């Protein structure tokens, strides 16, 4: 599969993708084979249905949002380039990564881009703010019908109240980043604590 994929993928295209996304050659070919196996229509593009066949996405309450993130505004198909561009958000940041072009755009997998990707999962109307309604929708997706509306509403209110700093009753990206940073620190310390516990006991 890998070899087939690599033959299907033109070299220059591969190079471009490499440049754009920072994936390695082997990663790209592997992802390409994955891409083609997902591509049931065999037309070189993926549709939403193709994505929904991925179990992790199918069961994810936010799966639709993630799938949407693959598709440019108003389009129903995504080609390999777009596919890779979105996937590049998930590429871990490597230590030895060097950028060839100094002036080039920021790598897609930078921390802020990652965060922004996550942010967009919640920001439905793309106004760069997570409003109460958007939060409610997300909550609704996650909990199903188990919890009443007003209760969810109060949760959403509290969430916004916690994160909101400029008093506009919505979570802006800046605020989102702040919260995320806080969690990151928290998680790091907790992980280190856990590690210590594990190694000690």
């Amino acid at each position, binding site marked *: 599969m890998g070899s087939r994929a690599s033959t299907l993928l033109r070299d220059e295209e591969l190079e471009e993708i490499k440049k754009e996304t920072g994936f390695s050659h082997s990663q790209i070919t592997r992802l390409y084979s994955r891409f083609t196996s997902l591509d049931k229509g065999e037309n070189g593009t993926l549709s939403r249905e193709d994505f929904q066949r991925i179990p992790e996405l199918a069961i994810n309450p936010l799966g639709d949002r993630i799938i949407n993130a693959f598709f440019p*505004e108003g389009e129903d198909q995504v080609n390999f380039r777009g596919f890779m561009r979105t996937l590049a958000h998930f590429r871990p940041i490597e*230590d030895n990564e060097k950028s060839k072009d100094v002036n080039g755009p920021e790598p897609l997998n930078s921390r*802020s881009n990652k965060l922004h990707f996550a942010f967009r999962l919640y920001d439905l109307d793309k106004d760069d703010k997570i409003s109460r309604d958007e939060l409610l929708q997300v*909550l609704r997706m996650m909990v199903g019908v188990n919890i009443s509306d007003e209760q969810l509403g109060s*949760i959403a209110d509290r969430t916004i*109240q916690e994160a909101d*700093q400029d008093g506009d009753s919505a979570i802006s990206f800046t605020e989102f980043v702040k919260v995320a940073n806080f969690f990151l620190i928290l998680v790091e310390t907790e992980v280190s604590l856990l590690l210590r516990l594990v190694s000690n006991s």
Partner: protein
Amino acid sequence: MKPAKASQRYRGIRRNASQRYLYQESLLLSNLDDSFNADETGDSNDPEQIFQNIQFQKDLMANIRCRPWTMGQKLRARAKEIVLKFEGRLTRTRGYQAAGAELWRKFARLACNFVVIFIPWEMRIKKIESHFGSGVASYFIFLRWLFGINIVLAAMTGAFIVIPELIAGQPFGSTARKTIPKEQVASAQDLDTVWSLGGYLQYSVLFYGYYGRERRIGRAGYRLPLAYFLVGMAVFAYSFIILLKKMAKNSRTSLASASRENYTFCWRVFCAWDYLIGNPEAAESKTAAIVNSIREAILEEQEKKKSKNLAVTICLRIIANILVLLSLAGSIYLIYFVVDRSQKLEQSKKELTLWEKNEVSVVVSLVTMLAPSAFDLIAALEMYHPRTTLRFQLARVLVLYLGNLYSLIIALLDKVNSMSIEDAATKSNTSHWSDSTSLFATRTAPAGEPWATPGPGVGLRRNSTWALAESSLPPRAAPLAKANGSTPDTQSPQGQCWETYVGQEMLKLSVIDMLFTVASILLIDFFRGLFVRYLSDYWCWDLENKFPEYGEFKIAENVLHLVYNQGMIWMGAFFSPCLPAFNVLKLIGLMYLRSWAVLTCNVPHQQVFRASRSNNFYLAMLLFMLFLCMLPTIFAIVRYKPSLNCGPFSGQEKIYDIVSETIEKDFPAWFGSVVGHISSPVVILPAVLLLFLLIYYLQSIARSLKLSNHQLRMQIQNARSEDKKKVAQMVEARIQTQEESAKRLPKDSDRVSQLSSAHSATPQNNGNVVNFDSVSSKSSRIETVAQSVPQSPRPGPRAPSSPLPGVSKSRPGHDARRYPRGLYASTGDLRKSRSHTPVTFAKHADDIHSEPLFQKDFQQIDPSLHGPGVSALVAEGPRPHAPRYYIINERDSHKKNHPTFWPERHFKIDASGDIVEMYPRNVRPYVSRVYPQPHSPQLSEEEEERPGRDLTKRSFAPRSLTDLHRAPHFYIGERSESRTLAPEHQGRAHYQSWNDGFGGQPDRPTYAHRKPRSRNFRHPQHPLKPRVKPRFEPPVTESDSMSAASSSDQQNSSTDQYLQVTPSQGRCPRAVGRLSRRKAESGPELALDLDDLIYSNV
């Protein structure tokens, strides 16, 4: 290695840019933590980049040195640190080091993965954790930990007692105490004998009685009795030490991770889902967990505001407590009653049925099984917070278990008592009868039980044993056994060895407890699960959701059960050396059974509370249990005389005599005397005193540390909330000012840029513009304004009672000069605008910190800053739009309108325009009410303006408020418009013309006012609805500016004036401002949407 991670995000020049930015910023925002920036930006693995960076930093240092900054500002630029930090990176060894570190890390991770294989049940526990959360997993971790302890205990007893006895001790059947009495041989293999641990089991290494009393066994002369005693004590000592150690460690870590109070809801909403879940079932359980956690959150909220009917709840709670107490007393009485009855039965009946033999253990196990559920039901009455309920439940169950164990052990000791009396009686013969009774009386007293009933029973028994004692005078086992055959008490030979009896009882209890656990798991969890699962379809109600449901894993009860179980082990370990080994097997079985049951039959908890997670609570209970279980054993050891016929200590007066005997006989004389001195009160008393002192001292230290810890935490909390408050205030201030200026041309972003330029480029600005300069020099005032503004915004701009302090300061300026009023007012405005700009800028800075993109942008623009002419920037016109646009998007809806479509060359215009235009609005509130004076002169001059201004005042004031609320509509609408407008802007770039009229500042501003004012005046009029207006405005203003820029025919005169005014600010500020503006703007660019990009290209 960590800094290296961030490295590749930054490229050389970008880094430079960011550094350059950094020192400007460090001037502006002293309160921002720029360490992140510095660390991040300075890092790289690429030697070339590092080299560049170092070069740059050195330049920077040289640059900084000649600046008239304070030392703190210079230091904050951090250039030197970075140079020092990265100069070493260029060497080759550094590269090897990095590679080696990388390798090592990978290896460590591999090793970690490998080690996990050897941690028992790690995978199983992880699986459970993934399904049921950490609470349930903590039970299994606790179980595993207990398992570890029991292994050590079993190893200790096994290695030092059981195995030596098996190898070197006298073999089975060689002596009387190691053989089964003849009359019992026949029934020794019967099931019920084995079941009651009699027969062969009784005469085996399982129990105390089997061990020989020879002081030395085998060729090596192993001192088994001594070892038996020491190991018995070591079991307790080890348990104590390991428990305390664990607790200390836990409390350390729990202190470290105490604060998750912040952002709890954000955590639940944003971090709830585990994106690696690929299994539908796991997804289901994850969803359930999320629902639970949200429910829990809701519950917490409700608990907080719940106002209850006090009288009713108090009554209910009293009733509940009475019920609990009753059931506790009942269970204790029941157990005592059963023990007593079994004793009577033993005496009165020759053959006991299976039930009669096991009555005690069964009843005890039943009580321990059922009572917690009863408590659970009772707890529902109390309506406590779930966490409190859990605590109460735990405490009650613990009391119940302890009560059970204690009533059992006291009843047993009671029996032991009577046995030793028999012993004493047999030994001392009939003449001492009265003595022994008195002894009995004294012995029951210390037990101090609530029951007075034993009297008759024991008396009865005593009588019978008395008869027995008389019939069998020789106290040796074999003859006694023969004699016993005729007595009604069949158990007398065993009865002569009370230690074995106690050991038997404990082992029996443990076994039956195990059976009951298995039964309860099967019954309560498994069969119920089956029942609910398969009969649900045919039942008349919904079994799965209504009555039986699926079992929940009750962490508290289960953990307590473990504690209880361990207590039994500790209690019995001395009398039955194999008990720990048995417990190891039991725990293994329990682990598998429980984990299977949990995974197959249980559903995750409806309510998971942190209390269930605190392991230290469990450990404390375990410690408590250990202490309480040790007491009876120690008591028995100290108080009772060991049996004459069995066990390693037979023939001694007390069990612990073995130690003194060993010291006397096996150690040199001097050692004995030393020990004698040490154990004398002369040494012991001071030692105890010293211990008390130490304890007190450490206790006080701990208390003070706790206090300081608490205070520090409070400080952090305060600082955080104050920060938040401050930010909120600033934001409000900004909102208010924006509200006021919402419909005007000036852009906040421009102002921001102005501000930054003012600071970073003051030298350049100096002398250029009166206005500008004054403002920049007044930077100190910014703060005052910033503080004062927040107060005013709330009352609303229209409230005359609250004039802005900052404004009032500037008023004298107005008064003093008629014409310059505009100018001064504008400065006031500027200042005002500044009062909020810090906020926006701070935000920018935030962006910048986290945003490499910004730096890049900045860098790109960088050259343009240095570009000689403003005119050179014409071509760049379209570019600046995009960034500005973002700012708008990103931060405030309010800002959005203005900044968007000003080509950058208009910046000056903007700046001046700001001044000019803001004047009417900002002044508006106070001008109209507080300060009518300045107007009158103006009115005479600019009559047409006045009404306009007033109009704007009136019409705008309400609108501004609505704007505030309707922020979203606002910008959306704008956006579309702005797009359409964009092309127009690009075309025009006529700012060179502005440069000419630099001279007559004082006069021109007034003209300038006119124009903007008139403009304002115009706007308000067509849109009657406040909401619609904001949309229209920006376009109009833009068109104005465009017209100004192009100096097109429309509004000719005014434009000219306008143009003339603008140059007054001078070129340099513009350039600088532009650069800084770009800096500021490029930050938000990360927020770029696709359409935005498209737009910027247009």
